[in-house]
């Protein structure tokens, strides 16, 4: 628990409130009609109000501060997002089965190798590797059967991201 008067929680609340306030002010220079902006203004107003309440609670009741989760690490979020996007791009361009196999195989081979090196159990590495690759093939085939053969999912080539 932080003993500072102004913690990261209050700072984040303030930042969101300032951004929403900026958006709220911007709506007055927008070309949209007044009624078109009615609900967006409510939305931005709520974010401003919520952010201010978070800030006030942070300042007035520092004892009640709930610590932010430390489990969530941004580089992993970016990495996983990029991997998912790359897989989405790959299955449209190199085929669903190939992309799925590669996506799973690369990840599982790397994890199996890392585990073998960490625990020094290279004797089992080949067996684990064979099992994981077989599983990757099985998943790729099932995915192909469900989404392409059965559901006839449309997969146009889209080389550009």
């Amino acid at each position, binding site marked *: 628990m932080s003993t500072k008067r102004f913690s990261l*929680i209050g700072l*984040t*609340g303030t930042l*969101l409130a300032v951004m929403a306030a900026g958006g709220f002010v911007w709506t007055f220079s927008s070309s*949209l*009609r007044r*009624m*078109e*902006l*009615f*609900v*967006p203004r*409510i*939305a*931005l107003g*709520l*974010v*401003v*109000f*919520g*952010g*201010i*309440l*978070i*800030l006030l*609670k942070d300042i007035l009741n520092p004892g009640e501060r*709930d610590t*932010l*989760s430390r*489990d*969530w*690490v941004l580089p*992993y*979020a970016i*990495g*996983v*997002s990029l*991997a*998912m*996007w790359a*897989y*989405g*791009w790959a*299955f*449209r361009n190199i085929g669903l089965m190939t992309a799925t196999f590669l*996506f*799973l195989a690369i990840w*599982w081979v790397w*994890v199996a190798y*890392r*585990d073998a090196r*960490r625990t020094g159990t290279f004797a089992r590495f080949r067996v684990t590797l064979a099992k*994981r690759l077989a599983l990757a093939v099985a*998943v790729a085939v099932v*995915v192909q059967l469900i*989404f392409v053969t059965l*559901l006839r*999912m449309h*997969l146009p080539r*889209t080389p550009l991201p």
Partner: protein
Amino acid sequence: MSSFNVDAALAAVSIVFALDTALFIMIGIVVGISVGALPGLAHSLPIALVLPFSFFLPIHQTMGLLIGTYQGGTYGGSITAISFGTPGTPGAAATVTDGYALTKQGKGKKALQMGLYASVVGGIFGSIVLIFLVVPIGQMAPRFGPGELTALYFLALSLVVVFSTENPGKGILSAGIGFFLAVIGRDIITGGLRFTFGIRYMQSGFPLVPLLMGFFALPELIYQIHGVIRDPDKAGKVGDQPVELHSKTEEGLGFREMWRSWRGIGIGSVVGTFLGALPGPGATLAAYTSYSVTGQFTKDRNYGKGSLEGVAAAESANNATCGATFIPLLTFGIPGSSISALLMAALIMEGVPVGPRVVVDHTQVVYTLFLLILVANPFNLLFGKLLIPVFTRLTKIPSAVLWPIIAVVLVIGTYAYNSRPFDILMCIVAGLIGYFYKWFKLPDGPLILAFLVTPLFEASFRQALTISRGNWMFFLGSNISRVLWVVTIVAVIFFVVKRKRHSEEE
């Protein structure tokens, strides 16, 4: 149904309790549960796929298949919500919080069983209400004009914000973000583009399925992958240590535990039936509203952190909508959701013109539908029970193996929704929003509810202002509106005061 037609009822009984009908219901249930359990594949998909069968199958077989798929799919969505924190269908999103927390505590089996039993109880309740109140409730629905609907949606939004969190600022902030995401796209009346930032795909708004998939599944995926990379020794199964400890002795749900959740099941059944009978709200809104309302009455201190009552509240509500959604459909020909629109299409293709006269002109068909909806529930219970062990075992698969497969299903499921690569990007954006929510400990309920209700709220609100030519007193023009506004104000004051007293006592 002013008078009960005995002959039609007996004919319906003989049709529904035949072997072929039972077989089609069973196939529907198994397909529904299996597809519902696949994140991203909404159960409207198999219903749409089996729709052409109505051209050559008799009506009882077609409707048995469709109703079985509908009920099985509605329950099936909870399986992955509980086992992996990824709702299989949007209606199961409210189940994630408590269901997945229970799985992580090694009580996944109990949670799955509670989800199943609550679903069946909610489904039966909704079916019985459909049978007995189809006409009275159907007659009440048209009285909900734009003014009344505005008041109703405002009530739902207010309560969720009040109920959602100990910190009202976070609840309001979360609802504000949900409101904002919902207004992106074309204006519902003028067609003007709002906050699309020049992106063509955004003109149709922020897509619902990628939002739900990304918001719930991606943060968990990131967390699990982080665990596998940073601490491979600890990253075991989804249920981590508790599942390991109880893997052989993990107990099922006891009758007492089920009985202790009577509030959640009761509230869920009533809320789900009521909201299911209104066009628009649907299973997701019903589940969240029930979950929020039960949160105020429960005595379970673990509510929101791994409570069986939380699972019961959400699951009974979303399955209670299955029967109730037929009320506006059969009485006025108004499909309350996309799925009931598909069911309506099947009835029309079978030569049944759905509308106010259907009860008089096709009494036997109506009785057959009632019975099919009712009979599908025991089948749901049976096959749900048979399939639970299969899905429970999946939680024992090591994280390093399981989560990449879920990532695959997540990406393909999101893409399959509309065959648009843009949806994958939206899923990732929603996932990053969900990641922020987890980090900042914002409640997810207000965002999802605000996102779902805002288009309905805005449509009725602006229709009301257009009809009344800008006269705001129109919102207080009827007794229903006045009652709803009073209920909103009283409920908000009551629950805020109650919460304040509760926190002072603590």
